[in-house]
Structure formats: structure tokens, C-alpha cells
């Protein structure tokens, strides 16, 4: 990668640069996609999946790989799904929400999966049925639940779901709040102040708040150079904090008098305890902060459906068997993704995809009366510290001593070197990864 050594830390890479590094990629494949719809045997076993997001969609596709004959039904409340992953891009105009919007059409046609757009309102684990708002009932042999997250607004005096839907978006589920936060960033007065308040652990997408902070700073650098971002954190450490802070130093003057970002740790009083909406003030353990834009990303727990179905324990999350993702509380029910307690695995889209594949094999094995095989999980999180500056964390996981733990010496974050090629290429890979990942999930 010597061709990249002249690059600076905020420079863009061209396709020509890439070809120099990797060689032109051979492009193959003009075959015709030909899925046929197939009738199921009357006595076919039935797997019902609640939630058609990353976990649910990946699960249905890969269960079809593992079992050509099982009947699969996904019940999803909304006809379209917007990925939370890369929604930070929308705030600064690097992606549109439309580009992050997917549906289950290919899952339905190519993998012969029934898709029902309806809201699940209850389940009977003894009779093995689920009920929907439209009055339908579905019998299952196995039930898979992938319900995402819910927010603990009660941890912040003066903040609630209504304020989040209005002037104080958390924008931590992609949608209208993402666009509102973008509007507010663009409308900030010159020299204004923005606040991002990340949640306490554990929460969805651990690098998400810090990538968002980086994007705010990059936006200020270009369009509002006297503005300032205050990150008010309840924690003393965060994921990839080494490479993130190094990037902030390189790109945004972090640790200088003119820094575009200030990060206040929990020990320094960073934890937010209240929002005073009328005054545009955030109250922390360390005092009050006034701002023009306030983005509190609330503490989290398992999605509402998981709570309603009784799949959560006192922690607010769903305990699972590590080799199958089967609920520890209810047999024949499996929990995927952010809602599950997966030990060392972060709550990421990649983790949900990984867990869905392990679960698909375990469900297929169980339907055949077999014990699940050896589970192997993985996670790679690419984040951007700037449009052309990537940082990553990666690990392969195994079940050891009853917990999901990094396997071998695989766990690691991006090395900090003086070579610009590392973060430039990680930014390229991040973009490649996003395009590929959604294909693995939805097509």
C-alpha cells in the first residue's frame, strides 16, 4: 500500500488508488435469479419470527439454507425497515434515509418465507401460539424474537418519548428523529454549542455516539468553525476510545484550546441527570450546560415486545443459552440481537446477523431432534471518525466456560500508527461493508 503513503488523514481515496492497491476486481455472474414458490407439506414444521430487522431477516434466510422444508413466517409491524446502521451518515448528508430503507420482498420470494405485516400483541408459550393486532393467530414449533431496543427515559428527569419525537430527538432508531437532528445541526448559529450525551452500558452500537460526535465536529470544521460539541458521558471509557481520540486530535484539534470536541467523562461529572427543555439546559453530576442542540441518547433495555412476552430478567435484557440463542426462561423461544445477553459481543447489527446464523443452525438441528453443533460468532464494527477516516473493532467468539468470549487472540481495535493508509482504507472498507452487509441480511 505504498501508493497510499502520501495521503493525509482527511484525504479521500479514489477508485484509481484502490485498483493500484488491490488490482482490478474480476466481475463475474450474469445468471438468472430463479426462485420458485413452493407449497409446504401440511405437516411441515413451522418457525415463526417476530421482527423483520437485521436479526429476523438474516435468521429466515439462513434457516432456509439449513432446512429446505420448514415453513417460515416473519411477522413484522412495518412494511419497510430503516437500518440504524449508517444512520449517522444521514445527519451529515452522506446517506439519505431512502438509501437505508429495505423491505422483505427478496426474503419472501427467493427464500420462500411468509411475510405478515401485523403487530404481535401476545403469545401463549404453552399452546405455542402468537396473536396479532388484526386478530390472527399463528401456531409455531419454534418462535424467534428479534425486537431491538427500548429507551429508559425515566433515567432523565424532564425527558420523555414525546420530547424525543419533537425538539429533542435521540435519533437512535433511524427515521424522522434522524432528519430532525440533521435539521437542527444545519440550523445551529455560528459559534453555537451542541451536546451529545451517550448512554450507560450496555447499549446498541457502542461506537455510535462517538461516530456521531466525530461527524458533528467534521461538520463544524467545514461550516461552523467556531462552534463546539460537548460530549457528556456517564462512562470513563468507550469502545475504540484510543483510535477515536487519536482521530479527534488529528482532525478536530482535540486536547487543544481550539478543539471542536470536548469529552467529559463520568468521573468528571459527565453523567446527565435532567433535561430542562424550556431553558435548553442539560443538568449533569458536574453542573448545568446550555446548548443550541441537545441530543440525549437514553439508557436502554430490551425491546418492548421482549418485555411484554416475559423474555427479560431483572437486568432488562434477555438471558439466552449461549450455543443456540434459545431463551433461558422459555423453551422453544429464541432471542436474537440487541435484546439478548450475549456477554462479550457488542449490541451491533453484525452481532445480530452472526447470532441469527448460529440460531438458524440450532433451530434446524433441534427440529431434526439433534443437539446444536459448535457455535461460532463474530463481530466487526467499522465506524467513521471522519468521512475518510475509519476505525474498527473485530473479534471471533466461541462459547467458553458458559459465556460467549473472544476466540484465540482475535479481539482487537485498529492499531494507531503514523501511516494514513490504515484509517483511509478502513473508511473504504466501512463503505464496502455497509453495501455488502445489507445484501447478506435482506437479499
Amino acid at each position, binding site marked *: 500500500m505504498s501508493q497510499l503513503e502520501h495521503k493525509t488523514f482527511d484525504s479521500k481515496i479514489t477508485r484509481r488508488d484502490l485498483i493500484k492497491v488491490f488490482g482490478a*476486481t474480476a466481475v*463475474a*455472474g450474469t445468471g438468472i435469479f430463479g426462485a420458485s414458490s413452493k407449497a409446504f407439506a401440511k405437516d411441515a414444521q413451522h418457525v415463526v419470527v417476530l421482527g423483520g430487522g437485521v436479526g429476523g431477516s438474516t435468521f429466515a434466510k439462513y434457516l432456509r439454507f439449513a432446512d429446505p422444508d420448514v415453513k417460515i413466517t416473519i411477522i413484522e409491524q412495518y412494511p419497510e425497515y430503516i437500518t440504524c446502521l449508517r444512520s449517522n451518515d444521514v445527519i451529515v448528508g452522506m446517506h439519505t434515509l431512502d438509501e437505508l430503507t429495505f423491505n422483505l420482498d427478496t426474503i419472501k420470494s427467493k427464500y420462500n418465507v411468509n411475510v405478515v405485516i401485523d403487530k404481535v400483541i401476545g403469545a401463549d408459550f404453552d399452546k405455542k401460539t402468537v396473536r396479532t393486532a388484526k386478530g390472527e393467530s399463528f401456531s409455531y414449533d419454534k418462535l424467534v424474537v428479534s425486537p431491538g431496543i427500548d429507551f429508559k427515559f425515566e433515567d432523565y428527569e424532564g425527558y420523555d418519548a414525546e420530547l424525543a419525537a419533537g425538539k429533542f430527538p435521540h435519533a437512535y432508531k433511524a427515521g424522522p428523529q434522524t432528519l430532525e437532528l440533521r435539521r437542527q445541526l444545519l440550523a445551529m448559529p455560528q459559534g453555537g454549542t451542541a451536546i451529545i450525551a451517550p448512554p450507560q452500558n450496555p447499549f446498541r452500537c457502542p461506537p455510535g455516539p462517538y461516530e456521531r460526535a466525530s461527524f458533528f465536529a467534521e461538520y463544524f470544521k467545514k461550516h461552523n468553525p467556531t462552534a463546539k460539541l460537548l460530549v457528556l458521558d456517564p462512562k470513563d471509557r468507550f469502545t475504540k476510545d484510543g483510535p477515536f481520540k487519536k482521530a479527534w486530535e488529528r482532525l478536530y484539534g482535540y486536547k487543544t484550546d481550539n478543539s471542536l470536541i470536548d469529552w467529559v467523562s463520568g468521573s468528571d461529572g459527565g453523567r446527565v441527570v435532567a433535561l430542562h427543555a424550556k431553558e435548553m439546559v442539560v443538568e449533569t453530576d458536574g453542573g448545568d450546560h446550555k446548548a443550541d442542540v441537545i441530543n440525549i441518547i437514553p439508557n436502554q433495555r430490551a425491546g418492548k415486545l421482549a418485555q411484554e412476552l416475559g423474555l427479560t430478567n431483572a437486568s432488562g435484557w434477555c438471558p439466552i443459552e449461549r450455543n443456540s440463542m434459545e431463551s433461558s426462561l422459555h423453551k422453544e423461544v429464541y432471542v436474537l440481537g440487541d435484546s439478548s445477553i450475549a456477554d462479550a459481543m457488542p449490541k451491533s447489527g453484525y452481532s445480530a446477523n452472526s447470532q441469527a446464523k448460529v440460531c438458524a443452525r440450532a433451530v434446524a438441528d433441534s427440529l431434526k431432534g439433534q443437539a446444536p453443533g459448535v457455535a461460532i460468532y463474530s463481530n*466487526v464494527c467499522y465506524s467513521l471518525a471522519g468521512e475518510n477516516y475509519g476505525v474498527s473493532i473485530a473479534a471471533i467468539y466461541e462459547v467458553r466456560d458458559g459465556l460467549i468470549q473472544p476466540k*484465540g487472540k482475535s479481539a482487537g481495535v485498529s492499531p494507531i500508527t503514523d501511516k494514513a493508509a490504515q484509517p483511509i482504507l478502513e473508511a*473504504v472498507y466501512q463503505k464496502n461493508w455497509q453495501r455488502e452487509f445489507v*445484501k*447478506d441480511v435482506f437479499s
Partner: protein
Amino acid sequence: MKLSYLFTPALAFALIQPAAADAQNPIASGAAMAWQCAPCHGTNGQEFLEAMPPLAGMPAEQFIKAMIAYREGTRPAIIMDRVARGFTDAEIEAMAYWFEKQPVKQWENTSLTESQNAQKSNSTGGQQ
């Protein structure tokens, strides 16, 4: 560590069986591990349009050499060194033989039947 034998595919294939069957130290199946590569390298390794190299149809020997070099730090890497350090020789081999069988074409142009037939076949070494 004895690595030289790995570069003779026929011999390596013979050695994989006892490792996979070792009850003391069972490994995940080749498919189960290979599925974990899909978010970056495409479903069944069948992504030919991005910067990450396609794995479908890659000769097993090439896959094994690359993964071991990443793991041992003898091949420059951005992220694959961190990933490869999670796998033993036997696991790398199991993935290699699985990927070798996958069709050399984009996943979105591959039917389910075509994919299933490819997995039943012997290794073809699609990328000659």
C-alpha cells in the same frame, strides 16, 4: 508450529478429518464458520464487486496460505490479522474447502438450487 504440510492440498484434506472429529476439541462446521464471513465477503463468499476479495471458488490452498499469513503477521493487513487470529489450522482448512465449492458468481444471480447443488459437489477450485 508445523505449517509446511498445509500447502499440499491433498495431504491437508486428509489431516482435517481427525481434527474435526476430535471430541476433546470439537470445531464448528466449515459452513457455520464460513457464514460468519458473509457480512464483508458476501453470502457464501459470493461478492465480486467490492474491495474485499471474493472467497467463493478460491482454491483452498490460496485461502489457507492467506489466512495463516494474516494470523502469523507475515501478510500486511488492515483488519484480517485480527480476524485470522481467531482460527486454528483445522478451522481454516474446513472453511477453505467449503468456500472452494461455492459458485464463482454474484450471490444475487445465484438460485437456491444452484447453491445447494454446489455445496453437495466436491471441491472444484472454481478460480483456476
